[in-house]
């Protein structure tokens, strides 16, 4: 377990939404409540436009909620000012749906950015930055792209760089917005393996937004095997069994919350859309 994850383990809940409302022209989040415990994996399913990305942005205060409470790392961020949010956000890694990689910076500089910028944890010395960037890029198997620009990479490679940037600070909570969207099945599975690996190596809580049921399945049923590399069925290694909770969103509301077995048992027609047998 990383230092950050341990700190949160003491603090209790990683993220809590308490009856959160958020609207633009129409209501986008409607009475959303849930809690994420340290080390937990939460898979959010839902149709396009159901508010999944908005939920993730509200979780780190990029969007302001109209009502209700958002508690991140034990701190109520609902009405926190932007400058005070910086310190809380440093505990969260984010992979954005559209990537969010800075296209004016090289891959290496992109991954170094959180280390150099989030000075809240104290300045990281230059050689330490270099070491951790290399390590993060090695983690996603993209060491060789260090000096390239994001525009020179394929979609799958950009996603992996995004993951490297999200996890380079070893945050206790990582948000992944549609990590497999628009990717071929093989690349998508590679990405999910990386996310599972990050979870199992560092013990970070993960929130994964996706429309692919397999992604959730991988998180629920597989563990990263550090000895052989690659994923193994969780049943073969019962010692490490982080919780995986599924949540289904529809038009801004959470219409289902529960583990994989109850998701598969659900009789709700909308929920069943997201379950493949």
């Amino acid at each position: 377990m990383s230092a950050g994850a341990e700190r949160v383990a003491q603090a209790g809940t990683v993220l809590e939404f308490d009856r959160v409302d958020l609207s633009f022209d129409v209501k986008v989040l409607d009475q959303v409540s849930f809690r994420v415990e340290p080390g937990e994996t939460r898979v959010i399913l839902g149709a396009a436009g159901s508010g999944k990305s908005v939920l993730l942005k509200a979780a780190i205060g990029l969007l302001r909620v109209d009502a209700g409470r958002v508690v991140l790392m034990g701190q109520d961020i609902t009405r926190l000012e932007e400058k005070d949010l910086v310190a809380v956000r440093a505990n969260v890694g984010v992979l954005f749906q559209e990537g969010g990689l800075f296209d004016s910076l090289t891959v290496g500089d992109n991954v170094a950015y959180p280390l150099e910028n989030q000075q809240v944890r104290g300045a990281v010395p230059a050689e330490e930055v270099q070491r951790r960037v290399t390590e993060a890029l090695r983690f996603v198997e993209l060491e060789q792209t260090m000096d390239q620009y994001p525009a020179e990479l394929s979609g799958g490679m950009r996603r992996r760089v995004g993951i490297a940037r999200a996890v380079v600070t070893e945050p206790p909570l990582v948000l992944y917005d549609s990590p497999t969207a628009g990717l071929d099945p093989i690349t998508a599975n590679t990405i999910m393996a990386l996310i599972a690996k990050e979870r199992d190596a560092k013990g970070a809580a993960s929130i994964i937004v996706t429309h692919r049921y397999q992604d959730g399945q991988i998180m629920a049923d597989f563990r990263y095997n550090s000895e052989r590399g690659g994923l193994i069925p969780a049943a073969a290694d019962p010692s490490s069994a982080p919780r995986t909770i599924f949540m289904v969103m529809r038009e801004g509301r959470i219409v289902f919350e529960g583990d994989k077995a109850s998701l598969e048992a659900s009789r709700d027609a909308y929920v069943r859309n997201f379950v493949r047998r």
Partner: protein
Amino acid sequence: MSEFFKALVSEWQDFWFLAGRAFANIFRSPHYWDDVALQMEAIGVGSLPIVILTGFFSGFVLAMQMSRALNTYGATGQVGPIVMITLVRELGPVLTALLVAGRNASGIASELGSMKVSEQIDAMRALGTDPIQKLVTPRLIATCVMLPQLTIVADFVGMVGGFAISYFSLRMTASQYWTPAYQILEFNDFVQGLLKPFIFAIVISLVGCFYGMKTSGGTQGVGRATTQAVVVASVWVFVLTAFITRIFVNL
């Protein structure tokens, strides 16, 4: 209808909020001087050729048209002062501002718009960088520094264009053209001639940033933001020049 006005008022508020933050950041750390330099180059050096071209021909055409009218009063000797006053007070600032609005307000809006739709601006905030400090303030500073200088270049090149007509077509000597032209200038003209580009610079850069930062709706949205930025910035240049001229005429 009331929906439309509500949207307009809220947009107006958002704009002033952005403007306030951008100005406040000028006096606040961290300063991104590298970005300021980069923007100065894009705005100043990049616009120079088109500003020179346009400046020259506006002075050239102005002198040509004026000399015909002045000739009917036997007053062609006044062409220098007339070109000078028109350029320094109005044409230099306005033409330069319109060119920079077309080139840079659009450039800024499309650049920031792409960053917005690819969530780079969200990523910046998530990683502890204030996007206004990093993106808007450098563009504001760079435009405010470069636009007055570009305007001076346009004024000067325009005078040279007027001189070309006076020399070749009106057979005037250099001193016949330049001396009365310089003598006509008053302190007031300098103030007006430099205040305008400074204010236009604020409007152009902030309008470009504003439409860029509020881009939504993917690639199409970036195109929309770009067009809006140019149109709105240009309209404001016209409105403000009339307004400022009005103030100075009354002084």
